[in-house]
């Protein structure tokens, strides 16, 4: 298949309600039907809202995922790299059914581990609380009464703290100053520190109020309350702390002991997600008392097998029809291995709209070339090729988009290598720098197979413009192709052929000026007769555009005005072509920065430290340069495709084909007989 938007069939499946569950599960495992909202709504058929059940399954999936997170925090899972290598585990139907049988039990385990984690974090939080209580008791350790003891029948006891460091003498004096009448007071200092002084006061019950009042004036504060004496209380608290720490460890052990259930948890996540997906489909079905109708889209190539598979197993009618013009059929692209890798790029712009062609092949041809011209270093290209090839061969279960993107960079790497050798760049001028610095052979360098852009920038600029013009003209060609395919040949001539004449003629006309060709450092100048022929072609094109660009209007005056505006579009072409100068700028950026790093590395010269510095600077510098310039090349290749190229012919607006399937994370639910 050359390039294609896969043709879609609309399918309607009518079956008995008793078969609903197995049919839906089969469809889910096949993953080839996109289910649409059913449109039957009368006294027989109606839709069931099952979003509540769907939400419940979603919630279960979240609980299982949470349990898995908890488990991963205590028992590290396989590294994500290893998982990528291994791929998702396949489950046979028997294993699947066995696990489904005990799903409630698995969910119980999930809830248990979450509860354990909650208790664990609460216990961990309780420990510092106890610790601060122990610290608060420390100044009181030498006090041998319970701290909540307020006295006897005839005496009152006050224990507490005063701010700052207070000596017994001062304290007695102050107390005597405030309440000179009382004599039956005994004061003691339990402990002092610069922040506070712990005091103990005994007085007669009758004086209690006066003493308390006085103490309050001195900013007296109550101590932590204990019903036993502080030393014993502290001992108790320490024991409590021990117990808490022990409990934390026990809980950790318990959570860790669940490690064997990781597979169950993973299964639960996948299972409940898949079920939630299934219930979202049930909500879309049209159902009567005993039957249901499922409507959707499937790629034409799968339609026949789908019908056969379903009809051989169930009492069911499968009807597939061509989608009508008004219907918005979803879009699925299929391309050969050369063009398929750029499908994610096309998708990130927009999928082809109704009746549009799939631009992937055209995009692919230019994508690799433009990227290669911008990065244009053979060594960087080889690194990309090797890296992508390794990733593709090692990692089994990459998402489709990631796999395609890696393949795209693989091809981009090949192109980068080719342009690198054409322009004589291998880690910039590393070959020459190493030969000169360490082997004293300045004559050795990697010769450019074509020319070095840094020495002849105008030639490179001319080449970039040439590639750009080709790119734009191919885009216009695609527009012409689409006009012809739809039978609008006249529109094709007005909107494409005239532009070919105007832009192509004008560019060719320039070649008859020696000032232009010498500026572009070209050796060939066209004879002026030929030049004037091209000039006339350009004028003819311009007149054509002037007369036809406004062909929608009946009024001739309006038509010419619109035509003038149409001809003004030539400025757009000028800026489009100039935009390709980024190929030169980014290409030079790669090689010049590489040169800067090589130069920096070689500054110490030919000695042992010189070699070490060179290697370090070389590795760091070129890694950075590759990363930044590969990013730049990627972004600007996309820009040239999206803005300059797609601007000529492509609109997009298609809806992605998103089939009903089990979007699992850990397991592949195998269907014994794939379509």
């Amino acid at each position, binding site marked *: 298949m050359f390039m294609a938007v896969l043709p879609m069939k609309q399918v309607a499946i009518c079956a008995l309600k008793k078969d609903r569950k197995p049919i839906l599960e089969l469809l889910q495992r096949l993953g080839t039907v996109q289910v649409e909202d059913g449109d039957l709504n009368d006294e027989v058929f109606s839709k069931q809202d099952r979003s509540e059940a769907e939400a419940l399954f979603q919630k279960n999936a979240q609980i299982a995922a949470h349990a898995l997170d908890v488990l991963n925090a205590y028992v590290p899972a396989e590294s994500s790299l290893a998982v990528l290598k291994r791929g998702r585990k396949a489950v046979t139907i028997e294993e699947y059914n066995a696990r489904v049988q005990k799903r409630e039990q698995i969910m119980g385990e999930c809830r248990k581990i979450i509860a354990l984690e909650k208790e664990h974090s609460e216990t961990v939080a309780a420990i510092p609380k106890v610790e601060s209580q122990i610290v608060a008791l420390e100044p009181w350790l030498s006090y041998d009464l319970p701290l909540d003891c307020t006295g006897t029948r005839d005496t009152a006891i006050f224990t507490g703290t005063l701010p700052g460091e207070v000596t017994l003498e001062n304290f007695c004096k102050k107390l005597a100053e405030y309440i000179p009448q009382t004599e039956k007071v005994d004061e003691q200092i339990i402990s002092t520190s610069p922040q506070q002084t712990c005091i103990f006061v005994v007085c007669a019950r009758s004086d209690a109020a006066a003493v308390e009042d006085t103490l309050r004036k001195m900013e007296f504060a109550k101590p932590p309350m204990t019903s036993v004496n502080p030393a014993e209380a502290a001992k108790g608290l320490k024991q409590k702390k021990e117990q808490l720490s022990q409990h934390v460890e026990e809980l950790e052990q318990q959570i860790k002991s669940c490690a064997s259930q990781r597979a169950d948890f993973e299964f639960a996540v996948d299972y409940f997600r898949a079920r939630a997906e299934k219930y979202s489909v049930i909500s879309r079905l049209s159902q009567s008392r005993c039957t249901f109708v499922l409507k959707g889209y499937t790629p034409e190539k799968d339609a026949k097998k789908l019908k056969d598979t379903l009809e051989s197993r169930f009492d069911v009618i499968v009807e597939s029809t061509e989608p009508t013009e008004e219907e918005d059929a979803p879009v699925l692209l299929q391309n050969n291995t050369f063009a398929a890798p750029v499908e994610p790029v096309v998708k*990130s*712009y927009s999928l082809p709209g109704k009746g549009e062609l799939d631009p992937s092949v055209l995009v692919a041809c230019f994508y690799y070339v433009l990227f290669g011209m911008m990065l244009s270093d053979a060594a960087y290209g080889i690194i990309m090729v090797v890296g992508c090839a390794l990733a593709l061969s090692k990692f089994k279960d990459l998402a489709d988009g990631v796999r395609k993107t890696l393949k795209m960079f693989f091809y981009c790497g090949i192109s980068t290598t080719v342009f690198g050798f054409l322009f004589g760049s291998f880690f910039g001028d590393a070959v020459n720098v190493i030969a000169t610095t360490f082997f004293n052979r300045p004559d050795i360098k990697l010769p450019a197979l074509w020319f070095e852009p840094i020495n002849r920038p105008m030639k490179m600029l001319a080449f970039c413009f040439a590639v750009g013009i080709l790119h734009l003209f191919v885009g216009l060609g695609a527009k012409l192709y689409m006009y012809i395919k739809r039978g609008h040949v006249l529109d094709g001539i007005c909107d494409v052929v005239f532009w070919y004449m105007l832009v192509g003629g004008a560019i060719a006309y320039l070649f008859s000026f020696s000032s232009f060709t010498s500026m572009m450092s070209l050796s060939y100048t066209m004879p002026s007769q030929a030049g004037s022929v091209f000039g006339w072609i350009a004028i003819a094109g311009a007149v054509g555009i002037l007369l036809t660009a406004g062909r929608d209007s009946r009024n001739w005056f309006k038509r010419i005005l619109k035509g003038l505006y149409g001809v003004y579009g030539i400025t757009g072409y000028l800026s489009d072509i100039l935009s390709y100068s980024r190929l030169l700028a980014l290409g030079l950026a790669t090689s010049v920065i590489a040169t800067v790093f090589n130069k920096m590395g070689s500054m110490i010269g030919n000695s042992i430290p010189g070699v070490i510095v060179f290697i370090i600077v070389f590795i760091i510098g070129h890694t950075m340069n590759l990363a*930044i310039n590969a990013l730049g090349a990627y*972004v600007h290749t996309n820009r040239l495709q*999206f*803005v300059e190229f797609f601007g000529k012919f492509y609109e997009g607006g298609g809806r992605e084909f998103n089939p009903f399937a089990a979007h699992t994370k850990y397991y592949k639910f195998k269907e014994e007989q794939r379509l």
Partner: protein
Amino acid sequence: MSMNSFGIFFALLGAVLAALLSGIGSAKGVGMAGQAAAGVCTEDPSKFSKVLILQLLPGTQGIYGLLIAFLTMTQIGVMGGNPDISLVKGLLYFAACLPMIVVGPVSAIHQAKAAVASINMVAKKPEQFGKAMIFPAMVETYAILALLISILAIYGISAIKI
């Protein structure tokens, strides 16, 4: 000391200003975008790679500035060679650096604003990443055009005998 010895001064002034101002612009731009990117990652760390690419976009102006500085310095012999150039030639080199000196920092900051907006876009609609990347890249076009003119001018001047 003849006036001609000022030639090398102006040429070097142009070179270092290109690196200096473009560097400041890019530093500011990448910083702005980085704040927005970090904000997105606090909510959803899985978007890291996407917002990182967007954050880096305003960083290229600094590299272009470095490129112009390096090209000028090799041409005028500061990196080894004969640094004896006339005053006129020195001023010409200064003029050649001007596009990068002016457009570099300004475009970096404006590109950063577009990048911040694109990062917000990716935060809400991660599937629109392809489009989000294009908006800042549109701004960069002008930095690239400035870079191109500076490069061509520097090479052109070296061929002039003044």
